[in-house]
C-alpha cells in the first residue's frame, strides 16, 4: 500500500501544493485534477520518485519510501508527460526497448503486435514513429499498459491527443487493471468515473 502524508512541494520560493494526503489501496484510483500549472505532473513525479517532496512523507508497505527503491520500481509503471517514444524507431521497436527496461510480463513479439492491434495501430507496426500522428504515438506509449507487470500505474494526462475510440480503449484497459487488483494514479482533465472501484479525488489549487 502506498500512503502519502501531508506532501508538499516548493519550487522557486513558491508553494506549488501542500498537505496532500491519501491512501492507495488495491483496486483503487487516485484522480489528480487541477488547472494548468497547479502541480499535477510534479505530484506524479514525486510519487514515481523522480523528484523529492519538500515536506511530508511517502510510505510504502509500512516503511518510508526510499527514493528510487528498486523493489518499488519493480512494481511501478510511469508514463509521464513526455511519453518516451523514439521517433526514429517503429512502434514495435519502441515497445521492445521500453518493456526491456521496465517491469513487464513475459512477452513474445506476437504479443507486442497484438497489443498494438488492440490499440488500433494495425498496419503501422513497422512505420517509424516520426511518421505517425501525435495520437498514434500516444497509443504506442499506452500499449505498454497491456504488457506491464507493474501493480502501480502512474499516468500523466493519457487522454490528450486521443480520439473517442482511443479514450474508450484506454478506459477499458484501466478497468481491467483495477479488476486485477491494480492501483492507478491518474492526472487528467478528462473525467474517469468508476462506480465499481474506490476512487479518491485529489484537487490541486493554484496557490499564489
Amino acid at each position, binding site marked *: 500500500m502506498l500512503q502519502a502524508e501531508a506532501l508538499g512541494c516548493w519550487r522557486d520560493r513558491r508553494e506549488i501544493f501542500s498537505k496532500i494526503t491519501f491512501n492507495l489501496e488495491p483496486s483503487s484510483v487516485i484522480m489528480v485534477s487541477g488547472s494548468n500549472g497547479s502541480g499535477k505532473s510534479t505530484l506524479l513525479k514525486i510519487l*514515481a*520518485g*523522480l*523528484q*523529492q517532496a519538500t515536506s511530508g512523507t511517502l510510505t510504502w508497505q509500512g516503511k518510508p519510501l526510499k527514493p*528510487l527503491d*528498486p523493489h518499488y*520500481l*519493480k512494481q*511501478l509503471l*510511469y508514463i*509521464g*508527460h*513526455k*511519453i*518516451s*517514444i*523514439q*521517433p526514429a524507431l517503429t512502434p514495435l521497436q519502441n515497445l521492445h526497448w*521500453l518493456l526491456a*527496461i*521496465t*517491469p513487464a510480463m513475459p512477452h513474445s513479439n506476437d504479443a507486442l503486435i497484438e497489443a498494438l492491434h488492440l490499440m488500433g495501430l494495425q498496419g503501422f507496426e513497422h512505420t517509424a514513429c516520426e511518421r505517425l500522428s501525435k495520437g498514434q504515438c500516444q497509443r504506442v506509449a499506452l500499449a505498454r499498459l497491456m504488457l506491464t507487470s507493474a501493480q502501480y500505474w502512474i499516468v500523466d494526462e493519457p487522454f490528450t491527443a486521443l480520439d473517442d475510440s482511443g479514450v474508450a480503449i484506454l478506459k477499458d484497459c484501466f478497468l481491467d487493471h483495477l479488476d486485477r487488483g491494480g492501483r492507478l494514479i491518474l492526472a487528467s482533465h478528462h473525467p474517469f468515473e468508476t462506480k465499481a472501484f474506490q476512487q479518491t479525488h485529489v484537487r490541486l489549487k493554484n496557490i499564489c
Partner: protein
Amino acid sequence: MPLLFFVMVISLFPMALGVEPHLLARLAPAIIWVAVVLALLMSLDNVFKSDYQQGALEQFVLSPYPLSLLILGKSIAHWIAIGLPLLLLAPLFSVLLNLPFAGVGVLWVTLLLGIPTLSLIGSIGAALTVGLQQGGLLLAILVLPFMVPIVIFAASGVAAAGNGAPFYSELLLLAALLLLTLALGPVAISFALRVSIE
C-alpha cells in the same frame, strides 16, 4: 557528422602547412588527437539530449535495473557509432600526415585505449548539461580540462614511437585511465543524470 568533421580537420593541416613533410610528421600525433577530441566533443552533446527531450531518460531512471549498467550499454553503443569508425579512419589519415610507419600502430593502440576514456569523461559532462538549451559550449569548457592528460600521454606516446623511443609507459597509463573511467564513469554519469532530471 562528427566523422566528416574529423576528416575535414585532418585534411586542412597538410593544405595549410604546405609542402613540409618533416614538420607534418612531427605534428601528426598532436593533430590527429586534437581532431579526435573535437569530433568526440561534437558527438557528445547529443548523447543524452534526445533521450532527455523524449522522456526516455525518465524511463531509464525508473528502471529496476541498475542505471549505471544501462548507461554502460549506451556508452558501448556510442563507441560503436563514433569510436569504432574513428579507430578505422585515423590510421588511414595518418598516412596523409606523413606519420612514420612505426607510429601508426602505436597511434591505433592509443586510440583504442583513449577514445572510450574520453567519451566516458565527456558523457559525465553531457549528463550534467543535458537539461540546458545551449549546453554544447559549456560541455566543451567543462570536460576539456579533464581530457588533457589523455591527449598528452597519447600524443607523446605516438611521437616517441615515431622517433624509436620507448613508449610502453604511456600506453600503460592510458590503459590505467581507461580502467578507472570504465569503473567509475557509469556511476558518475548516472548520478549526474538523476540530478539533471529533477
